[in-house]
Every structure is written in structure tokens, then in C-alpha cells.
């Protein structure tokens, strides 16, 4: 096929998958969180159990007025949602659903993923700083501290998996997976899961956006489509982090009939992780800012380092 046409096709499909999966996760969150709390969730929009609720929300956000506060730093304010959303789109492009099904096959996938998702931190910081609002600033600062602190445990746990697989390529890591990894990579998996939930600023790590305390944190001054993009970024983040967890620690496409059903297994495993993240939101209270930081530096980093050491020892002994 004409390379330019193939590129455009891949981009279009990627964009569609990105938006559809984020909306599906968003709708799942509405319904699952509702039932976890003894409610029904959206029932009205779209007739059948409110499946079109997020579409209705999107229409609502699009028709709102685009307001920029007078004192705000205009271009930083306007660009922040894009800077928060785009990294997740780029990361989704390199995640393989099966050895052959990937939008962009990058040799150093794990490295690329970690580097690009760190850019998303900048979006939240831009939003908080440029809003000219003290609550937004406070939320932005807390978010920046939180996201930076939890980058390290995430990087260390991914390093452990890459070391065990012997490659930084995402396809290679998932290929090298073995069910025994569930046992001896378990600390690393837990560290990645906790760090991922913290990177997404979701409960129990949603101090930056603690509704009852900081209005909406760095998102306070946002309305309309820009606000919708921040929300979309949160759900896109859940999609991306669940897929990454499935690829790194659950073996991605491994499972019965993996030749034909490979992508289904990857999606199924990441769906389970997404539901777990939603379950955590409905069940656990919020960590205070200092508890959050303490957990990152005094619990997760030592645990990830221990996991890395264990992996290194195992790799050295198994290669003899």
C-alpha cells in the first residue's frame, strides 16, 4: 500500500481507537462506580441504560463559551489541555495489541512510553500556573510534586521488567513473558499499579483535584471544550496505563488461541485493570499530600529497587 496512505490510515484508526476506548472507559466508570455505590448511573441518554451519556456530555461541552480569565497567561492557558492530552495519544500509538497489531513499532518502546508520558505532567503544571487563581496554583503545585515523585517508582518497575525480558521493546517484553513472572515480578507490578494510579491523579491519589478542598485544583478556571479535554485526558490515561500494565506484567496477548485471539486477550486484561482502577476510586479515601509523598519515596522506591535487584540477580544466574 502507498506509504503515505498507510500512514494516514493508521493515524485515523489510532485516533478513533483513542477516542472510542476513552469514552468506553468513561461510560464504564459511570456505570460501575454507580453500582458500586448502590446507584444506577446514567439511564436516560441514548435510551438503553444511558450508553450515550458521554456523547451528550461532549455535545454539551462543545457548545459552551470559551472563557479565558483576564489575568491568565493566555497562550499557556489555552495550550495546557492539549499538552495534557497529546502525550497519551502518542503513547497509545506504540502499545502493541499483538505482535503484529501496533500503530507504530518503535524499537525502544518502554523508554519512549516513559519519556512521553512524563510530558503530560507539564500540561497540569501549565494549567495550574497560568490560571491566575490561588486554588489552581496550589492544585498545580501539588499535582506537579505528586507526578514527579511517582515517575521514579514507575521507571524502576518498568526497568525491572525490561531487564527480565532483556529488551526495551514492548513487543519483546510481552513476548518474553512467562506465567511465573506473576509471582516474582509481583512487587514490581504492585509498584507500577500504584504509581500509575498516582500518575493519573485518581483516588486515592487525587489530592490535586480534591473537589471538596480545592474546587477543581488546576482545572478550576477551565470550562467548555478545554475542560472536556482534561477529562478526556484522565480517561485516556486510564486506557493507556491499563494497556501498559497488561503488556508489561500480564503478558499482553498470551492466552489460549493467542494466534487469533491475541488482541482480545490484551484488551480483556486491560479492561480488568481499568475496572480495578475504577473500583479503587469508589472504595478508598484520599491520601493526604504528605502521606502521598511519603508513600512514593519511602515505600515504593525501595520496593522497586528491591525488585530490580531481585531481577538482576535472577538474570545473572539464569544466563550462566
Amino acid at each position: 500500500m502507498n506509504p503515505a496512505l498507510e500512514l494516514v490510515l493508521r493515524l485515523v484508526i489510532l485516533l478513533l481507537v483513542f477516542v472510542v476506548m476513552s469514552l468506553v472507559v468513561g461510560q464504564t466508570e459511570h456505570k460501575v462506580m454507580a453500582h458500586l455505590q448502590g446507584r444506577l448511573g446514567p439511564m436516560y441518554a441514548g435510551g438503553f441504560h444511558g450508553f450515550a451519556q458521554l456523547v451528550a456530555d461532549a455535545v454539551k461541552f462543545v457548545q459552551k463559551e470559551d472563557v479565558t480569565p483576564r489575568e491568565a497567561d493566555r497562550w499557556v492557558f489555552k495550550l495546557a489541555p492539549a499538552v495534557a492530552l497529546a502525550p497519551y495519544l502518542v503513547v497509545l500509538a506504540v502499545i502493541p495489541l499483538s505482535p503484529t497489531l501496533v500503530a507504530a513499532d518503535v524499537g525502544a518502546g518502554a523508554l519512549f512510553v516513559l519519556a512521553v508520558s512524563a510530558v503530560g505532567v507539564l500540561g497540569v503544571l501549565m494549567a495550574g500556573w497560568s490560571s491566575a487563581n490561588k486554588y489552581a496554583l496550589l492544585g498545580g503545585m501539588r499535582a506537579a510534586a505528586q507526578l514527579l515523585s511517582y515517575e521514579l517508582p514507575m521507571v524502576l518497575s518498568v526497568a525491572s521488567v525490561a531487564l527480565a525480558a532483556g529488551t526495551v521493546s514492548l513487543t519483546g517484553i510481552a513476548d518474553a513473558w512467562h506465567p511465573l513472572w506473576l509471582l516474582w515480578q509481583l512487587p514490581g507490578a504492585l509498584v507500577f499499579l500504584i504509581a500509575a494510579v498516582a500518575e493519573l491523579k485518581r483516588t486515592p491519589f487525587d489530592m490535586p483535584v480534591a473537589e471538596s478542598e480545592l474546587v477543581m485544583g488546576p482545572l478550576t478556571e477551565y470550562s467548555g471544550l478545554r475542560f472536556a479535554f482534561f477529562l478526556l485526558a484522565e480517561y485516556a490515561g486510564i486506557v493507556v496505563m491499563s494497556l501498559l500494565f497488561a503488556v508489561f506484567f500480564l503478558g499482553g496477548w498470551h492466552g489460549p488461541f493467542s494466534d487469533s485471539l491475541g488482541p482480545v486477550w490484551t484488551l480483556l486484561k486491560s479492561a480488568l485493570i481499568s475496572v480495578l482502577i475504577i473500583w479503587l476510586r469508589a472504595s478508598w479515601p484520599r491520601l493526604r499530600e504528605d502521606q502521598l509523598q511519603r508513600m512514593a519515596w519511602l515505600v515504593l522506591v525501595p520496593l522497586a529497587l528491591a525488585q530490580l535487584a531481585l531481577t538482576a540477580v535472577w538474570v545473572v544466574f539464569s544466563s550462566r
Partner: protein
Amino acid sequence: MPGLIKGLATTARTLARPTQTSEYPDVQPYLPPRTRGVIALMEENCTSCMSCSRACPNWCIYIDSHKETLPATTEGGRERQRNVLDRFAIDFSLCMYCGICIEVCPFDALHWSPEFEYAEFDILDLVHEKARLGQWMATVPPPPALDPHSAEPQETTAANKSARTAPTEST
């Protein structure tokens, strides 16, 4: 840590149970017997004694009436007087639904009805005039059965009491 797991278990259990939410306008709520929704007026029973208007703590009942004289039925007899009700209105924006007016009415002209969907866009439309109060009578349910082990109602005890016998020679 064990508390965290218990929290997860609680929410999971809530997920497994069917939800109690009843989706209101599609599903009507369950209203127990003797539900108080709106007050209905049976105009034929009302004698304009003004007991309800006086008893209402919020003064939300407005009554206008005038006396009419009816000619005597027999020749040389007394003319009879009747109260004619001109206006009977209850202002439901003031009403606190205490039911004192219904309890105090000696002629059973006022009744409770379980209807509750009469919200209006204009607060002045919450004053229900005689005609509308009469229309609510169609929605008044028959009185529910008494709970078990209740005392006999006064109507039946009065009816069952034997008639007064003639005085005996000893008195």
C-alpha cells in the same frame, strides 16, 4: 491494609446486590395507605361553619359564604336558613399539610388524597379554588382497614348500643 481489603469487599458486595433505585417518572413511587398528598373538598357536606379556617395554623383556607332563606315548608311555619358556600380556597403554598382542618371538620367535607403531582410554574396557581378541590375528591381512596388490635370505631359502638328503654316503676 486489612481495612483497605474490607473496603473493597464492601463495595464489591454493593455491586453484586440489585439496586433499590426506582426511576421516578417512569415508575410511580409506592405510597402507603393514608398518604397525605392534597386536600379534597366535598362541597355538599360543607356548612360554612369555618371550623377548618379557624383551626388552620397557617391561615391558608379562604371561605366566603352567605345566608339564604328558604320559604317555610308548611303554612305558617318558620323560614329556614341555609349557608351557601361562595368561595372555598386552600392556598397550598402556605399549607403545611398538618391535616388539622380535616380532623376538625364536623361534617366530613375535607378528605386527604394521595395525589402529589400538582406543582405549578406560578406560585399563585397553587391556590386551589372550590372547583379544583372538588375534582380532587375523585382521587380520595376509601378509608383503609383498621390495624389489628385497634379499638372499635365510635361509629360502630354508637350503632351497636341498645336503644334507651322506658323508665321502670322503681325509679
